[in-house]
């Protein structure tokens, strides 16, 4: 990287910093990590994630990887998925995991919270129809249980159904018996999380990133 490139990059960092909320230092670290994952390429593809061995052990690995390639998370209005992303999209997805800045106003905090919840919602709602149906929920529960050896499908279904019922009772308190609950919409989803402070839970520390030692 020549001097010219690094100057160009610095400006870029500043620009990205203002847009995503990272500090330039963090962006530099993340860029290094990005380069490491893509083996100095420019675009990140799904198979690049395979090098992270710890990720293989994660039960929701595929959902996480998909989240990176989901256009809905790029803060535009896109739908659908892409097959490769650049550093900017990588950064945008990562920015969902920033801790809430205490200096923000109440509205900014609220919008940040909404964005985080929307990110989570998108991870559940895989077919992108705006609601989490029973099948999608069942799939999530199955995946969570699948970590153990015995895959009990009935159990998973039962748990998912019970959970769904609970959400429905919370969200749409009264339903006539012949109505059908389509699925958890985003508003209902937010209602579940009402008591839990997602800002306090959904964050990752970005300050100390080790870029070199991970590749096992």
């Amino acid at each position: 990287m020549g001097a010219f490139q690094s100057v160009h990059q610095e400006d870029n960092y500043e620009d990205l910093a203002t847009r995503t909320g990272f500090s330039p230092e963090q962006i530099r670290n993340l860029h290094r990590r990005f380069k490491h994952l893509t083996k100095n390429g420019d675009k990140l593809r799904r198979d690049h994630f395979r090098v992270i061995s710890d990720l293989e052990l994660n039960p929701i690995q595929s959902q996480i990887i998909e989240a990176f390639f989901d256009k809905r998370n790029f803060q535009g209005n896109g739908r659908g998925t892409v097959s490769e992303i650049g550093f900017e999209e990588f950064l945008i997805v990562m920015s969902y995991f920033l801790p809430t800045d205490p200096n923000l106003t109440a509205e900014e905090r609220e919008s940040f919270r909404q964005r985080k919840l929307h990110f989570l919602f998108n991870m559940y709602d895989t077919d992108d129809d705006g609601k989490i149906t029973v099948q999608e929920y069942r799939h999530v529960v199955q995946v969570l249980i699948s970590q153990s050896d015995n895959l009990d499908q009935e159990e998973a279904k039962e748990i998912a159904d019970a959970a769904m019922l609970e959400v429905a009772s919370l969200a749409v308190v009264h339903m006539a018996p012949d109505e059908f609950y389509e699925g958890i919409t985003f508003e209902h989803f937010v209602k579940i999380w009402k008591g839990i402070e997602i800002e306090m839970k959904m964050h990752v520390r970005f300050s100390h990133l080790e870029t070199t030692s991970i590749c096992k």
Partner: protein
Amino acid sequence: MSCWTRRGLLLALALGLALLVPMALSLGAAEKTRRSVGNGHGTGVTLRPDDSHGDGHGVNKTKKIFPVLTFDFAHVKIPFEISLWVLLASLMKLGFHLIPRLSSIVPESCLLIVVGLLVGGLMKLVGAAPPELQSDVFFLYLLPPIILDAGYFLPIRPFSENLGTILMFAVVGTLWNSFFIGGLLYAVCQIEGTDLKSIGLLPCFLFGSVISAVDPVAVLAVFEEIHINELLHILVFGESLLNDAVTVVLYHLFEEYSGLGMVTFLDVFLGVICFLVVSLGGVLVGAFYGLLAAFTSRFASHTRVIEPLFVFVYSYMSYLSAEVFHLSGIMALIACGAVMRPYVEANISHKSHTTTKYFLKMWSSVSETLIFIFLGVSTVAGLHSWNWTFVTVTIILCLVARVLGVMGLTFVINKFRIVKLTNKDQFIIAYGGLRGAIAFSLGYLLHPEEFPMRNMFLTTIITVVFFTVFVQGMTIRPLVDLLAVKKKQETKRSINEEIHTQFLDHLLTGIEDICGHYGHHHWKDKLNRFNKKYVKKCLIAGERSKEPQLIAFYHKMEMKQAIELVESGGGVKLPSAVPSTVSMQNIQPKKSNSERALPQISKSREEEIRKILRSNLQKTRQRLRSYNRHTLVGEPDEDGWNDLLLKRQKIMDMDKQISRMSNYLTVPAPPPESPTLSRSRLASDPQHYVPKPTLGNVPIIKVDLASPQSPEYVSVVDEFQKEAVPLKEEDEDAGGLTMKVPLGDPKKEEQEQQDGGKEQQRLMRCLSDPGPGGAEEEDEPFLP
């Protein structure tokens, strides 16, 4: 105050007084008789003089009249006194809660100290010597139950997330407090005119270290009543537990060298090493015993009755073992309880679990009460040496040191924390630093010869304790309300929360892995995986070792629902927490229209079927009602796991049979008018084994898992699952294929309906209840 409570109050007070007076009198009498007769044989005092006293030659003893009634108090004296004290403590606790407004203004600890003062005063009046709080009684018998209770039910998640902060407060904070108070006190002592010159520097530091430790008993007693948010609670409470190691080391260090008057750098260095040994050693000892307990509980399936005993004895042994080596017994207990809990709970039966929980709560409650009463009594009993300067300076310094320490430390800590501590939080942490009986007992341990100012120290300690407990304890509740500090969220642990929390955990771990950041989640995940792979296999019996956490949680909730259903027996109406008419069929995926066009069956046939089903319904409902709390013997099975699986199998077989049977029965939606009907229609039963959605129009039979009978017992309590068939219905009783619980015998039937409905409501509600996974919430003290 209603008539009832007034009566109850009078009764309790009368009992209390009735106990106090004879106790005082008997102790006084025992003292007097002992003094007058002399100790001698230890055979006690008989009402008749003993003629053969002193006759040692075996000469014919003169025949005594056979003593019909003797008074022999001495040989039951100790257990008797202990029992009286415990009884007094319990009655006081009872009495306080009968006075409604008092317990909301004054924290219980204050009231108990006042009672102690009264009892002490009473005893002094009568002439008996009121007992002082002996240090070994305190440390060996009174303190462990409280700490074990705290450790066993320690909320691990918030504790581990805030561990860094807690350690900073505990270690650095206590060190700062000790040296600040000790140093400044020494400076004050050197001032002319206070006649405190004789107190050297090291005794001052010793005093500082004793008085600066935040006391877990006092913190628990006060914070439990104010329901503050989880973060603050765990910060102050965690600090009070972990500062024990620091206190132990400082105390021993200064005590050893006070006589010699100086401490070298080597000693300080050794002190640091000692601190590490004390704390880590304590934790290791505790963990070792915890693992032993978990391992033992694995084999306890055939002797369920003594399962709780293992929990208690192993924990107590860990405490004692740690105390042998002067390691931190408190940390050992905490480690033991926290380590053994997940495994033991997976192994022991439900009854044992309840027993353990209630015994721990009971013991810790009684201990706490006794401690506070004894504090009051010791105040009256002890020899005091009051020194205005010393006492006032100490109190001021304690407050100042605490505030400065908390502010300084928070400034540093906030640089590393993601969720920063606000000023309000800081204030509560500083204000919640209460001192208690540990300080007093440590002071009591000082030798009077080496520390001639011991009495003054004790007086000061008691004053500080009183000040913190009374002033700070009483004012903290209005302050919390005034400052609008966040209170504890009464969130019920629901299955949704569990799912989402687990999902979020995995998500964050994944993101950390992608970032390459070995953070909190990464290591937690690694620990979990290690736990699952190796440790659980060793320590948990049978199938439970492979159970994923989500399923375990769900089963616990089901068990809990079943128990609640059994216990409430159908008599009391419980309001449902989430009044909702949403039921299972609202959730099921839509069927295609073609399935809905079902063949009509002839009316007579339908009547027949209806009659059969109705009679079954009646029978089972009657059977159900006859099982109330008093006749009920069956509990959800002890070895719940296997039986549960068996039951499921049977239920699924039954489902298949039923579906084969009545495939063509249509049951359209009954009109949703009357609340009775709609309530009874609450098929919102998550324990429903919903057969495959394609067979959506089969009658669903709910199996009452709580039923005491064999798994074959099936209660057709529920209505049949409905298909959303568009049907025009003018009125209810018209010819339509309406399947309602017949209104033929209105009163009886409605009653049954309501019972059935209520049960379902309850079940519905139970879903959002705190599952046993959220045991921290549901653990109210047994003796509140």
